[in-house]
């Protein structure tokens, strides 16, 4: 959704050849949640900025389900007197522990860009919110710079792994909200999903992968916008959002410096197969058995990690003499000296066994854990076939996602995917002055009379950059034609009940 330019003159200044570029960069060195402290405005040191926001899948070069790629920013700063050098105690490292101790790792960064208006002065919009991942001083004779490599907020749940209990009957957006909030990412703008998952849990996979798998299971995508807000957009979002229905800018040859068309015939498929695995509440089963004897020294505790054989909706704390038998080395009952606490997730538990006896070691025999399993059925398949004959023979695309659990859900995903993949898709790359308010998913009109190009297209990649005193933008654009099977879709609150009515989507 395009950023608001109300009250500004950015709409006219962005393609004015005389508008002076403005770049503002902030770093929250003291990690206090704002950029208002001394030294946090580092705009005066900026040499170059390069930002990338992409909804494009790395394999297909198309905006497919789940999400795109992690946003990145490369920030090249002048580094006079080694001001930003982490090892320099006389620079900022002497003031800020975040630089001295962690080389600015995970320091929040905000980048704004825009133009100076003759009346209003500097008019800027946020182009990137993220965190520093790496600081790379680049110092040699005659050159003293430092490059901060930054990632969007999504980048920091790329390797964030969690284990969770099972959440039941939650919509995909509710699941995304839950896990994002738990990870501390509370800036969210989430469409209401059309899919409710009977069960969902985290099993130690990277959180971003998990959330994108949830999104893909609903036919939508999850990404972070330029202001660092997590956005979940359902499959029909581009048919619903005003900024995806009406062009937000016209990218014309007059300001374009380069255009390149890339036909993607290699990614055309004649069918999409989506497999799903039904899930249901299962009975109480033994999900963990310890074949070894657990030994606990006197007056001590031992913690063991128990991986379950099947995911469980709920797990029972082991019951003495039913699920384990505590005994001394001589075999006498030690139940009165044995206590056991358990912290369980869907797929594993941490069991802490405490031996309260002051002198006798405790042996725990036949330890097992019982839980109500989630009964996962055999995988079944749904297939969507194209009616087009654009390629020879049969080329199948397979969709595999553990969160596809119902046939209608799999059919929806397969049809949606097929719509994207049954035709060659052209991605137009447009380069020109930065149009600062555009966001991923916005509709623009791209025109180049020499190339015969005049088409509405969705913004699927944005690369704002600043170098040599100029603001630039590389925009990757997906022409709107045939992204959806038709137009005039039935929209609740706008369309009327009647026959014939507006059309329904998949």
């Amino acid at each position: 959704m395009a950023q608001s330019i109300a009250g500004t003159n950015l709409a006219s200044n962005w393609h004015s050849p005389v508008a002076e570029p403005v770049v503002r960069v902030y770093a929250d060195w003291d990690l206090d949640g704002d950029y208002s402290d001394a030294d946090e405005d580092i705009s005066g040191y900026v040499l170059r900025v390069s930002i990338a926001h992409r909804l494009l899948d790395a394999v297909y070069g198309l905006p497919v389900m789940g999400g795109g790629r992690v946003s990145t920013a490369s920030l090249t700063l002048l580094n006079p007197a080694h001001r930003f050098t982490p090892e320099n105690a006389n620079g900022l490292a002497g003031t800020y522990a975040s630089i001295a101790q962690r080389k600015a790792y995970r320091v929040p960064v905000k980048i704004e860009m825009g133009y100076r208006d003759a009346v209003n002065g500097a008019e800027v919009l946020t182009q990137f919110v993220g965190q520093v991942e790496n600081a790379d001083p680049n110092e040699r004779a005659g050159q003293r710079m430092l490059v901060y490599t930054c990632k969007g907020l999504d980048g920091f749940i790329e390797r964030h792994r969690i284990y969770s209990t099972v959440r039941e009957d939650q919509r995909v957006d509710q699941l995304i909200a839950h896990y994002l909030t738990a990870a501390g990412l509370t800036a969210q703008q989430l469409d209401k999903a059309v899919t409710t998952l009977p069960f969902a849990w985290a099993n130690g996979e990277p959180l971003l992968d998990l959330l994108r798998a949830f999104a893909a299971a609903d036919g939508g995508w999850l990404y972070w916008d330029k202001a660092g807000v997590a956005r979940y957009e359902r499959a029909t979002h581009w048919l619903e959002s005003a900024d995806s229905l009406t062009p937000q800018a016209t990218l014309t040859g007059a300001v374009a410096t380069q255009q390149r068309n890339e036909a993607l015939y290699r990614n055309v498929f004649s069918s999409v197969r989506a497999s799903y695995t039904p899930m249901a509440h299962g009975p109480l089963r033994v999900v963990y058995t310890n074949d070894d004897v657990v030994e606990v020294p006197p007056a001590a505790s031992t913690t063991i990690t128990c991986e379950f054989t099947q995911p469980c909706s709920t797990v029972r704390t082991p019951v003495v003499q039913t699920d384990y038998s505590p005994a001394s080395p001589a075999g006498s009952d030690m139940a009165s000296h044995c206590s056991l606490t358990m912290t369980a997730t869907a797929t594993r538990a941490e069991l802490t066994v405490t031996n309260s006896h002051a002198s006798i070691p405790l042996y725990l025999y036949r330890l097992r854990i019982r839980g109500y399993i989630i009964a996962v059925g055999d995988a079944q398949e749904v297939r969507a076939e194209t009616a087009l004959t654009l390629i020879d023979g049969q080329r199948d695309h397979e969709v595999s996602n553990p969160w596809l659990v119902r046939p209608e859900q799999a059919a929806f995903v397969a049809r949606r995917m097929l719509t994207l993949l049954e035709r060659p898709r052209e991605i137009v790359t447009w380069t020109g002055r930065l149009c600062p308010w555009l966001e991923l998913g916005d509709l623009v009109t791209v025109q180049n009379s020499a190339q015969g190009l005049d088409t509405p297209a969705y913004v699927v990649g944005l690369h704002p950059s600043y170098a040599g005193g100029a603001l630039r933008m590389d925009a990757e654009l997906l022409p709107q034609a045939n992204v959806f099977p038709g137009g005039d879709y039935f929209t609740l609150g706008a369309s009327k009940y009647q026959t014939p009515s507006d059309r329904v989507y998949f």
Partner: protein
Amino acid sequence: MAYRPFNIAIPEVETGQVLGATMLNSYGRMAGALLAEAQSEYSLAKCKNSHTSTSTSYATKERRWIVHSKNTLFYAIALRSDVNSICYLRVWDQTRGVQLAELQHQGNTWQFYTGTVANAFSAYANGDIIELQLQLRTAVSGLSANAWIFAVGQQGVINTWPGVPAFADGTTSTAQDLNDVRDCLLRLENSKVPATATLLASEPMNEDVGDDVAHTIQNAVYRYRGNRLVVFVEGFAVNGWKFWVDIYRCSAPSTKVGSVQGSWADAAWKWHGLDIDMAALGFTLGEWVRIRIYYQRLTGPNGGWRRVVAYRSGAPTPTWSTPRLWAEGDTAVGNAELSKLASNVAQLYAGGALELLGQNIATLAAPDTVEGDGPDRACTGIHRKRWLLVKQHKSEPVTLTYGPSFSLSETLPTVREDRWNVFDMDEYELPYGGLYILTGIDVALESDLAPVTD
């Protein structure tokens, strides 16, 4: 109509959202699944003969079991007493040791009581197995109190009903319209659909009756829904045998409404059935019906019966509108199609022609110790729920028999003869809607919930 458990999610929609065929179909599928739940064949539940007590202390007359899924207790019971005494009947929660309901009646004619007790089971979690006891006593020692316990169990309740919207052509759509339909469907599904399926627990079989007189072989109950009642009996007698079905209203348990019979001659064990037109007997939707099935050998030598199957059957009612199967590109989002959905949903609600009868009847043993311990205890039923719960009889093998002419048989791998065993019926070839026989059991029932089993 075969019934298959459903796992359908209906999305909640919001203003500005584009309507999809998948979501529209989910409404229709959910409504269709509820219709199937209501209209599919289902087994009658075993009903014991009336009980008598002359003691002023409560004595347990029946033990029943149920998988917890709803908080409300329901009962359908007839009481009678000596004119100079009072009959007391209480529903006792044996699992928690608390009284759930107590009924009393004075008078020597049968009085039929139906009712509910809210929150009777609110202390339980879904899947808990609850043992109920039905206990009877009289107010004056030596004077009789009688009870006929037709059904007791759990029932869902719909406290508020949002009502189905009108989809008038020419009016602007709203998300609320569809969310109301969703709400109705979910309330019906969550609150009224049985989570357990009744199996008909057999009374003791008799493979050689040794006489030519009538023998009661099964009592059973159900709530009437149009219009057929099917009864099969496995029997034989070389020189002829017959079975017949006497039919009563539970509201007047002594007054026979009708009787239907058939007769055959079989040199070997054979199943024979009667398909009874219950509508002709004047029953109305939801009425509690009791049947009693008799066997009689016409002449000797030899003859007897083994199993009994009894289930409600009936054609789908013509008042149901087949929902549209939506596809991308459809342009029929108007009153003509959407009102079918609304009308179907309204019919499923209380007072509708297709009202769901959502009671989960607590099941009886087959047979219990009073009825006589015997080998090869059995129940019969129609497979409707995924999970089969079985209490094994002693160490007898539990055998599942099903398929064409009951020609397929498997021994279930029971592991605990003193506890409930749970089987995933999806692992067997028995389709939903298929008839089967279980032998070697004390108690058996089917459930949507894989229950607590220890």
